[in-house]
């Protein structure tokens, strides 16, 4: 069987992301200053508390470290692989004033692996039942909310459209960045908390939320994420212009049917998903892979490590460029034309803010175009409830407590923040869970 992802560079990238060995973890944890009111912990949107688990590793309390991560962040293993730590916990690390910050994701990986290997006692649901709560969408926000509610003894049901749990990390993050076992372990922890996941549960009814509330669910949390990729009008009607969601999903789950040998691939976009798409294309045997972004090299939103990997895999960066025209043979794109662009106003990285630079026209021969420029919600939000308040392309409006305009209905994650990190979504789910608990307790007191 042909393996899609098998290049040497990717293997190196993966080994770089191996968990620290015991010896390396001991050394690394001993560089930590064990700060008072640790800034790394404050820097974690999900409250994983690295300040505490690093201290636990230093004092040889490895199982304690694993418990801290799992108890604070139900997607602790997933986050250890995916977190852009240089923008979060490691950015806040005090050691940075003296030397390189602590390798927090490496230590988190070490502790979660340790907990898995030595089988720390599973999370358990208590017998007490505080009532039923429905969650729509089993991605990071939904999972984060579910775990927190289950720990507070609520009876949680997650309705998931797909046949597997995990959301974006499950479907759209390439295996080389996130091994399936990491998701599996975290989902196992969720299930041990007694959370019920109903798969293949499409919400067809226009009054789904009313129905759930009528069925006895005391509150509903919407975490349906952004499951539809944005597309560029220019590529409408061409069969070889895919969006990154379907491309990455095919590479991950149907890679035997993808053969890009001797093909040229253009990926449009500059974020992590664009870089993931470009690297995946190269790993599937593509000849030339272009990464075409409006952002210049120093402005690319993708993580440093991924960009480094893309460079090592000889991805051609067409940064600060825009596609202006398509060469096609009927419904098949055969080439792209583009120009370099510059920002009109500073600090505004939007397509409406660019102007083309004269004399910079270029042409590329391509066999496949992958669009990775953003996403929008996959549902018509009105399906949930006709008066649910939204903005823009269907982003749900919530207040600081993640309450929507509807009584008893909460929302969090990408469908609220319009697209952020996994760890941010988990954090929002956790905070929403606390809001839900408060809301229900207040309601009970009033009654």
């Amino acid at each position, binding site marked *: 069987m042909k393996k899609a992802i098998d290049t040497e560079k990717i293997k190196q990238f993966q080994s770089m992301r191996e968990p620290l060995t015991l010896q390396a973890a001991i*050394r690394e944890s001993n560089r930590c*200053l064990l700060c008072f009111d640790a800034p790394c912990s404050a820097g974690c949107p999900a409250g994983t508390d690295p300040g505490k688990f690093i201290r636990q590793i*230093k004092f040889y309390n490895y199982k304690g470290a694993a418990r801290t991560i799992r108890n604070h962040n139900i997607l602790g293993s997933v986050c250890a692989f995916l977190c852009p730590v240089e923008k979060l916990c490691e950015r806040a690390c005090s050691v940075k004033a003296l030397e390189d910050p602590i390798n927090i994701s490496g230590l988190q990986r070490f502790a979660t692996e340790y907990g898995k290997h030595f089988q720390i006692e599973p999370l358990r649901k208590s017998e007490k039942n505080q009532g039923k709560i429905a969650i729509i969408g089993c991605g990071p926000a939904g999972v984060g909310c579910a775990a927190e509610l289950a720990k507070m003894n609520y009876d949680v049901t997650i309705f998931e459209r797909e046949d597997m749990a995990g959301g974006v990390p499950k479907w759209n993050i390439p295996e080389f960045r996130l091994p399936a076992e990491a998701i599996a372990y975290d989902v196992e922890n969720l299930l041990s908390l007694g959370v019920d996941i109903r798969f293949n549960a499409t919400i067809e009814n226009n009054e789904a939320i009313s129905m759930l509330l009528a069925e006895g669910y005391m509150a509903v949390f919407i975490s349906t994420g952004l499951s539809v990729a944005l597309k560029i009008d220019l590529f409408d009607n061409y069969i070889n212009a895919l969006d990154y969601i379907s491309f990455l999903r095919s590479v991950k789950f149907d890679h035997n049917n993808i053969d890009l040998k001797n093909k040229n691939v253009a990926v449009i976009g500059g974020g992590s998903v664009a870089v993931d798409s470009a690297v995946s294309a190269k790993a599937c045997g593509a000849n030339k892979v272009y990464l075409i972004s409006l952002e210049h090299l120093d402005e690319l939103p993708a993580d440093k490590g991924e960009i480094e990997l893309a460079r090592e895999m000889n991805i051609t960066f067409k940064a600060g460029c825009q596609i202006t025209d398509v060469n096609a043979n009927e419904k098949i794109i055969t080439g792209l034309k583009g120009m370099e662009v510059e920002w009109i106003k500073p600090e505004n990285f939007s397509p409406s803010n660019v102007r083309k630079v004269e004399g910079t026209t270029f042409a590329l021969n391509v066999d496949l175009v992958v669009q990775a420029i953003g996403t929008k919600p996959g549902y018509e939000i009105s399906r949930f409830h006709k008066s649910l308040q939204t903005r823009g392309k269907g982003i749900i409006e919530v207040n600081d407590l993640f309450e929507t305009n509807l009584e008893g209905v909460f929302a969090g994650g990408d469908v609220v923040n319009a697209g952020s990190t996994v760890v941010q979504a988990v954090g929002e789910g956790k905070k929403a869970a606390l809001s839900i608990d408060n809301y229900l307790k207040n309601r009970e007191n009033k009654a």
Partner: protein
Amino acid sequence: MKAQADLSIEFCGVRFENPFCLSSSPVGNHAEMCARAYDAGWSGIVYKTIGLERSFNVVMPSPRLNTLNVFDKRFVGLQNAEQITDRPIKDNIKDLLWLKKNFPHKVLISSVMGYVDEDWAELAKMSEDAGADILELNFSCPQMAHKTAGYRTGQDFHAVEAFTEIVKKSCKIPVIAKMTPNITDMIPVALAAKRGGADAISAINTMRAITEIDINNFTPLPNIHGHSSPTGFSGPSVKPIAMRFVSELYNSKPLNLPVSAIGGIETWIDALHFLLLGATNLQVTTGIMRYGYRIVEDMIEGLSDFMIERNIQSLSEIIGKAAQKIVDPSEFNTRFQAISMVDEAKCIGCGQCYISCQDGANQAMIFDKISRKASVDEERCVGCMLCKHVCPVWDCITYKEVDTTKIRHAAIF
């Protein structure tokens, strides 16, 4: 050409090109090793202790080492269950002869351990005949627990005096008595050695210690086929204890003998510490076991540069300079008090000083959670300086003398 200070010393009437010697141990186990040590720059070698086969049947245990590790810092101390040499006496004598012949300007010290009077006499004579410049009497090996040998001899004043006397009568070369630290007060033993005629004292031999227990099988390490024993502990961990003993020996007026210091020396600064506490000669083993003979290069260069910077012509000018400042705690001048001071520009905001002051001192540190900067509550600070010792920025927290007319509200401890 770089200037080189004169590092030479005179010890027991013998000139050493520098104070750095190998102490009696596996690092000076045979002639080939010793030759490489001399070539590396060591001025003298205390050869591995020799004994007579008729008295000691030496079979080394295995494994015989374990280290003290503190978090990620390994080899902070070394525990060994080594004994005196297990080589035949005739081979060792041959090696001593060869070394003296090939390195006439280096110093050769023969370490000996007898069991009965005749042994000590015979070993002294053999060593002198083989060319040894000095003798060192091993009264202190923690692993040789015979009634009249090893560290138990070193705890027995009469034995030390008697054996020293026998050795002095049997040879003409100077004699150093090597002390065990496994004793409350070293001075009476050193005085016994002096009465026996010793020309100098060396200290310390290793400390009886247990470094670690294997928590899987509840056996102390090193695990010698299911058993272990408190054996000789050395290295940086014992240096503070060695420094205490060396200063006491130096400061003892009735003793008044030159001291060769042993215990955790790895750098020129360690060496300087011992010189300042009164040592004339310095011996090293654990540092060599860990890093090799080459460390002497940095000791020589570092000490030489220090002397040139401070315009010190001879090490004799500084020997004992710090020992003079050692007093009984009851004699401290407590009229002078101080508080700590945080340099805000250097503070990196970790708050370790705050945690330590809260839980381990006088709750005098203020930590601003917003700016993440530490500062000192001058009213509460008692100047213990715990904060300085936990601060990861070495020069961020300093000591400032304050108005001594103020009376302290509270005192630490």
